[in-house]
């Protein structure tokens, strides 16, 4: 029972990623053309070489024709995938399984989201007809539940947590300032972050990820075929996804200081990948920093920090570019915004660059620069504390089996 995984059975051989930002002059279709063209160029193949497609988008289009039409695909299968903020990673996961199954030789995972055209602030998620009893609390409000609960459980002053939150935003902006694809490419001072207007609870404006448009794509083949396309393939080590039972919002056992869904998916992905000490083994981690307290708690749920101590590790610089384990070296959702369907693929794109030693020197993580580590992690969560989905992927530049 459980997952067997597909460790080292498939590989990413080419990727493309558009800049993320307010693309007033670029449509969903146009971003899809940009991302997929870059991906096939990166792999050195033609679009007709791709046998099947998985397209992740939360709300920028329905059906696979969102992709097949703008690319004028030749009657190819395109599966449209949605799983909240893990949508892009779900496209990757299912595309990988299709190759591992033997059904296809070459597939593409694509993610896209066009958020800025709505004219609204934040994410707008249309839901099914309902009875009007769901809470109207905003996403930052639901994630801000973490702060007082964490403070209460570990006896940490909320001001100290705020300091750690500020440090996370500062770090991710620092990294994003070194990334030409980021939406926000400026360092932001600790004071500016700490004093930004409060949005919900202790979460200020600069504790929130931005809203942007973007697209990214990956070409995936069988591991044994990978070297035909590139001498630096990135192998899939572990892929795990869980949809939580949503008991956290309904049962007092849950204390709002952790995401059990993340713990479960990390455990599964690590088992598949043979990771036993993620903090020591991973070269970098791209995690879902939708709001700064989320990233802080994820450090514990992903096994990077001891329970109740993530805030200290954050303040100690453990997760900086130059730290023991760089987290969000590309700038994260904080610098990229969160075009939902694209984010998971954007994270994989950074792993692809870093593991292939193609990231610019100024944001190459310490573990890659010094050598010795060749694993990277991507993580998404969708929903809110107590009720969410979680994806954890582990990728590596060395094939071990």
């Amino acid at each position, binding site marked *: 029972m459980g997952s067997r995984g597909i460790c080292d059975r498939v590989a990413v051989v080419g990727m493309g990623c558009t800049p993320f930002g307010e693309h007033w002059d670029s449509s969903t279709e146009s971003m899809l053309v940009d991302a997929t063209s870059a991906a096939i160029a990166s792999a050195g193949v033609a679009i007709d070489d791709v046998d099947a497609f998985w397209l992740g988008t939360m709300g920028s289009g329905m059906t696979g024709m969102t992709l097949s039409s703008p690319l004028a695909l030749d009657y190819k299968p395109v599966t449209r995938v949605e799983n909240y903020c893990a949508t892009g990673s779900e496209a990757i996961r299912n595309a990988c399984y299709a190759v591992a199954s033997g059904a296809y030789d070459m597939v593409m995972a694509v993610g896209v989201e066009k958020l800025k055209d709505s*004219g*609204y*602030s*934040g994410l*707008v998620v249309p*839901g099914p*007809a*309902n*009875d*009007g*009893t769901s*809470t*109207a*609390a*905003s996403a*930052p*409000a*639901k994630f*801000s*539940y*973490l702060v*007082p*609960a964490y403070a*209460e459980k570990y006896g940490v002053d909320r001001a100290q947590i705020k300091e750690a939150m500020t440090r996370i935003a500062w770090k991710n902006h620092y990294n994003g300032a070194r990334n030409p694809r980021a939406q926000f490419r400026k360092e932001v001072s600790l004071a500016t972050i700490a004093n930004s*207007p*409060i*949005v*919900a*609870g202790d979460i200020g404006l600069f504790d929130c990820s931005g809203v942007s448009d973007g697209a990214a794509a990956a070409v995936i083949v069988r591991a044994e075929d990978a070297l035909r396309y590139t001498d630096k393939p990135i192998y899939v080590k572990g892929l795990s996804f869980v949809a939580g*039972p*949503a*008991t956290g*919002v*309904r*049962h*007092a056992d*849950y*204390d*709002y200081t952790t995401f059990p869904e993340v713990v479960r998916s990390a455990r599964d992905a690590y088992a598949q990948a043979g990771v036993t000490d993620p903090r020591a083994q991973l070269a970098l981690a791209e995690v879902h920093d939708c709001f700064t307290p989320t990233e802080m708690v994820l450090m514990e749920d992903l096994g990077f920090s001891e329970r109740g101590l993530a805030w200290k590790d954050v303040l100690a610089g453990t997760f900086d570019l130059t730290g023991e384990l760089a987290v969000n070296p590309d700038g994260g959702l904080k610098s990229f915004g969160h075009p939902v369907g694209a984010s998971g693929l954007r994270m994989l794109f950074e792993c692809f660059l870093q593991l292939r030693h193609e990231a610019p020197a100024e944001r190459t993580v310490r573990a890659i620069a010094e050598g010795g580590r060749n694993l990277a992690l991507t993580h998404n969560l969708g929903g809110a504390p*107590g009720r969410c989905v979680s994806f954890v992927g582990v990728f590596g530049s060395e094939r071990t089996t």
Partner: protein
Amino acid sequence: MRITSYGVYVPPWRIHRETIGRALGVRAGTGARAVAAHDEDTTSLGVEAARKALVGTAVRDLELWFATTAPAYADKTNAVGAHAALSLDGDCAAYDVVGSVRSGFGALRAAADAAHAGRAALAVLSDIRTGLPGSPDEVNGGDAAAAFVFSPGDPPIATQLAAASVSREFLDRWRVPGEIASHVWEERFGETAYVPLAQQAVQRALAQACLEPSAIDHLVVAGPHVRATSAVTGKLGVGMQAVVDNLADRIGVPGAAQVGVLLAAALDRAGPDQVICVLALADGADCLLLRTTDALASRAGMPTVEEQLAGWSRALSYHMFTSWRGVLRNTPPRRPDPDRPAAPPSLRSMRWKFAFEASRCTACGTRHLPPERVCMICRAIDQMTVEPLADATGVVATFTVDRLAYSAPGVPLIAAVVDFDGGGRYACELTDVDPDEIRIGMPVEMTFRRFYTVDGVHDYFWKARPLRTSRARSAAA
């Protein structure tokens, strides 16, 4: 008329008349008026009063008569929404008596008559009074609700001695449906029209009961015409010590609910075997003479109107007041409107949405909010019993002040995860609360509210609020 129980709800928000005067640059008098919260309407106010009236009453097969001048819906029975929120027996009738101040007295009579015919009944009088900026109604109106239970099987706390009504057609106040504010005639005319009608009604009632005015121990005079009620009070031959404070200085004149609120205040202060005279002036005069009974002593410990007015209260700015009532339109948020609640899911979940009834797994005892088919702990399927939680209390597990979500001016949306005493958790909104007073572990209780209105559909559901009532004191003890 045999009253067996009663309850009053005055919302905790106030606007001081000096605040109105300052905002408009006029003299608006002194004192304050009660203001329904931004998430209240006459239905939710009425539900709150009825819940208080039903404390300690096991009877649920109650016929419901709902009176207001400001119905939340037209062409849809508001009494049925209140009936659902109170989880009353589905086999009972529920009727609106809406449109004018006089409806309040009418609902009392209708419910009393139902009980006289053998059917237990509940009268709910609820009102929200709004006027155009600068109008007397804006300054002198008030928002409140009162509810009275008439249960043939329970001992009455007050019984009817006599009743007399006079109806007279004249222009005192009026409003064409669709208008947000009423028109009033020049007020000295109304005073001269009302006073003789009032005297006539009281004299006839006293004659029926074979009583002299001096026998009246408590006199209630209600009516939106301030000069008329004031003038009548001194002309009935009743001693001033018998006059029950009309609360106009503290809550204003709450329209159709006023007669109920003041009758409740009279019952609060009355001893057994005393005579209460209730006089209501609206498009004529209605007079009721009641005698209290020994059963009134059973009310000891129930919160009085005075205690309620002395409880937690907050003053509004004029901007908040006018925005909450829709008199002032503010710019909408840069977010899409919430979905209109859909009819089929709202019916399927009626007991959850309107009555806050959850479920409990009979296999392992786990409570589920909202009710579910599969137990989240033992996964037993369809082994659930209904678990009414409207009167349950709980504590805050974690919370947030949400300054992004749309909320009424002056009050950010406050959300909290509530762990209920006896099990079960629900993340919901907090209302009638200061953002600064919320703490993990703070005790809360539930209250029925109107969340928003889209396409003319009011979204009713429950929120939590800090436990401030006598329940808090007894729970803390």
